[in-house]
């Protein structure tokens, strides 16, 4: 279980290959949800529980739900999956082969150009488990959006508000 974060990042890349090989968008959306969950796990392993929650709530629970409804609206009768079409399957296998070669290259020894040893545990320990820290970085960073980053907040809020009007006018073909 030492390399669990590395395995999660490899499965993250495999999920990306899964929707990048362009099956029917129903299966692509499913693969993106799986990759989003694994990305949340990777972020949380570095101690960022707030940002992992943001991924699940805002990204998967907000944007992917809207995508799911739109895909359900614009889909076809026989969706093609990874096994039903030879183009999709070969793209997926080429990507998978590339990832396997990269992992084998990474494990084949120490490289002079990187200079980091993989068996060092400083990247794999979870921060904040000792109970001695007084500041959670991601919570205080997210809270500083409202104090130091007030102009970010104002611009982002205004942009979201304007994009509603943009969406309405574009859908009405008045661009």
């Amino acid at each position: 279980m030492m390399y669990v974060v590395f395995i999660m990042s490899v499965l993250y890349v495999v999920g990306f290959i899964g929707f990048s090989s362009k099956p029917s968008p129903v299966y692509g959306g499913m693969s993106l949800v799986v990759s989003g969950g694994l990305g949340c796990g990777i972020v949380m392993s570095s101690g960022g529980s707030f940002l992992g929650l943001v991924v699940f709530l805002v990204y998967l629970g907000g944007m992917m739900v809207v995508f799911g409804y739109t895909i359900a609206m614009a889909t076809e009768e026989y969706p093609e999956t990874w096994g039903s079409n030879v183009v999709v399957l070969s793209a997926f296998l080429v990507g998978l082969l590339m990832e396997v070669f990269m992992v084998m290259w990474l494990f084949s020894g120490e490289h002079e150009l990187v200079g980091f040893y993989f068996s060092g545990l400083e990247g794999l320990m979870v921060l904040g488990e000792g109970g001695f820290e007084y500041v959670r970085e991601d919570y205080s960073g997210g809270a500083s959006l409202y104090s130091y980053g007030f102009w970010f907040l104002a611009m982002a809020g205004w942009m979201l508000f304007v994009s509603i009007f943009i969406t309405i006018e574009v859908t009405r073909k008045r661009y």
Partner: protein
Amino acid sequence: MPYIYINIILAFVISLIGTLIYRSHLISSLLCLEGMILSLFTLNALLSLNINFALSTIVPLILLVFAACEAAVGLALLIIISNTYGLDYVQNLNLLQC
């Protein structure tokens, strides 16, 4: 730790290639665009947490807001195309208008 960064940057490049190559559906390219945003978010969040610079955790949050607006506009264009042509096949888009 840098090996995890390599995997996430690789995921960005893979979904970038997926955005640029069209197959039958237009919404698959929008889905690959969302994948690009997800990999950028993960990379930004990991970097902010690992250099212990708490103020830069604003960056992934603002990135997600911009990504939501972009997805909204992209889906609105997809809706017009689907209203005109019935499906979002890329081969239907030969008039240079929605």
